């Protein structure tokens, strides 16, 4: 169940078509020994691989997410960011993972940050928008809460902790504060917003901590992949390892689980 909340991700400069093909295959065939497994929620790739990924996983019910807006730094011009977003959606992306302009946020230019997010949201059309705050660069929990409010008010469908390129990535305190921002928005408007902690959640036990946090803060309605995702690829293998152990009573070595 946690498996189908995962966005299986490859976001590297050295990504190739071959690499994306392998990732997409894994997304739909998580482990040969456990045939009844669900698929992951989505694969997350750079815009140039969206078309390929879409052709490989669409018929499996797996979504294709694309990072956009000059990921991971976000340091570019708005018009390029919007073009990139539109291009990715045109290629078939179901979801867009954008980054906010942290520099502008630190300058106190909150209107800029807000306007940029809502412009990207518009460029997304029907694609769902995940807004990455990059909390490792935000600084403190009050600011994380404020950035969450901005993102939600500007139209984010999901808020997401991190790009995975900055340390620290997702932590439990940061995630809790973002969940609280989502809850407060829900209290005020009755509208749900999704949450995606990304980076650093690499084992099943930690994933369980996060799920309990979501359950206790937001409730069970959020415990589906429509409203909650893990941005964590290595988590998949640990979950598989635990599942195999449940079946067989034995922990397998890492060699038995595909690396992609």
């Amino acid at each position, binding site marked *: *169940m*946690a*498996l189908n909340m995962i966005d299986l991700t490859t976001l590297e400069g050295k990504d190739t078509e071959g690499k994306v093909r392998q990732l997409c295959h894994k997304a739909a065939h998580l482990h040969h020994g*456990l045939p*009844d*497994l*669900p698929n992951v929620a989505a694969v997350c790739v750079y815009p140039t691989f969206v078309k390929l990924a879409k052709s490989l996983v669409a018929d499996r019910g797996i979504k294709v997410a694309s990072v956009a807006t000059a990921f991971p730094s976000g340091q570019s011009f708005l018009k390029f960011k919007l073009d990139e977003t539109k291009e990715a959606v045109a290629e078939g992306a179901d979801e867009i993972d954008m980054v906010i302009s942290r520099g502008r946020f630190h300058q106190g230019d909150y209107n800029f940050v807000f306007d940029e997010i809502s412009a990207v949201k518009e460029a997304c059309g029907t694609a769902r928008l995940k807004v990455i705050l990059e909390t490792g660069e935000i600084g403190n929990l*009050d600011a994380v809460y404020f950035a969450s409010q901005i993102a939600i008010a500007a139209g984010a469908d999901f808020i997401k902790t991190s790009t995975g390129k900055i340390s620290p990535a997702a932590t439990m305190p940061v995630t809790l504060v973002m969940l*609280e921002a989502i809850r407060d928005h829900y*209290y005020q408007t009755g509208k749900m917003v999704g949450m995606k902690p990304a980076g650093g959640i690499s084992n*099943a036990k930690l*994933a*369980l901590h996060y*799920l*309990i946090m979501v*359950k*206790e803060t937001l409730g*069970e309605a959020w*415990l589906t992949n429509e409203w909650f995702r893990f941005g964590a690829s290595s988590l998949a293998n640990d*979950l598989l390892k*635990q*599942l195999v152990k449940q079946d067989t009573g034995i922990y397998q070595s890492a060699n038995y689980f595909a690396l992609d």
Partner: protein
Amino acid sequence: MAKTKKEISWDLSPAPESTGHATIDKRYDLFIDGKFVPPSTKKYFKTINPATEESLSEIALAGEKDVDKAVKAARKAYDTTWSKISAAERGKYIYRIARLIQERAREFAVIESLDGGKPIRESRDVDVPLAAAHFFYHAGWADKLDYAFANSSPTSIGVVGQIIPWNFPLLMAAWKLAPALACGNTVVLKPAETTSLTALKLAELIRDAGLPDGVVNIITGAGETGKALVNHDDVDKIAFTGSTEVGKMIRRSLAGTSTRLTLELGGKAANIVFEDAAIDQAVEGIVNGIYFNQGHVCCAGSRLFVEENVANEVIRKLKHRMNQLIVGDPMDKNTDVGAINSKGQLHTIEKYLKAGEKDGFEMYQSQVAVPKKGYWCRPTLFTNVSQSSVISKEEIFGPVLAMQTFRTIDEVIDKANNTPYGLSAGVWTDKGSKIFNLTSRLKAGIVWANTFNKFDPTSPFGGYKESGFGREGGIHGLSAYLNLQG
């Protein structure tokens, strides 16, 4: 965890702590002069597990003769050994007790939860480690008293009688024993009758630590036993933690004698939330303040004052949070709120719930299921309570919170101080100047800022007004067990 085909359930599975490694004898005698001896009364009473209503063991009932025997043993130990050995030697014994508590921490935690009903998470993470910390801290002071009280020639008092309550049985024993021993006194300690087990296990541990016979004597029984100890004419000091009612009785009976006295009594703490507080953090603090240990805490934040413009937000979040609290089996590691300590206490709490409802205040209880057997009370919140009501005046000693709103700082300070108690208070605001303003104007022994129920052996704990006098912990706590010159 990740099920493939089956229906998904998000409820937590039971995670019970095993009780296998904790041994509880069928019957416990009195610990006097280094040995377990049967009581002269030949009577024993049952100690009950409040979560199952089953009997755990039988405890000896000490009569006047036994109290006298214990005091004589303590006097002899004081005269012949404990006041003769060097302070550094005393310290070594106390260190040894601290280390042994750590070694047997799991056993103590399990028995504390079985006997008292508190969640294993609390006994494991709070009670037992803090008890060990108190012995460690005071062991260090034993040979440094001259530096703690320069030019005051500190000397020990003699034989100390100590009476402790049932809410933190082992921890209260540690708060009492550690400073008394470090300062060179010998002790007769009486635990509460519903929770004697960990004190008796501590007696075993003290015997195993090789403490000289008679330095620590532990006698069990109810009010009459305590009364005999208080009225014994060879006791030099009484230290009592418990209800204000009994505290007053003790003070009356000691009037006109030279017996020294410290009292740590009830409380009705104000927990004050300002509009500029981090609300979610404050809600956690409110929950910790009143639902920790089922609200059986003398310094519990049982009166909540919320600035009116954030009251609705606080109430909504608090109710949400209350419903996340798991009430039930104290031995389950997921449990947040355990069993009410005794049938009698449950009746007392229920009496107050009725009083609150009768007064017409809105009562909200969390929606969680509670077990059929045992003594349980769901976390409870009363809103729109008035300052003049019974539930905001009297100490309930249960998971019951009485909430009022306020508009100005002066108003909330007046209301917070408008109580015969003065043990603790809490302040929640992001503004430092507000904190300093309130800490200097609230008449409470402890004021927590943006936290609640934080304890540390280095920090003195004690009350104003009818919450008692004398301090426990820190240098202030030592002075209660010493004669000081000048």
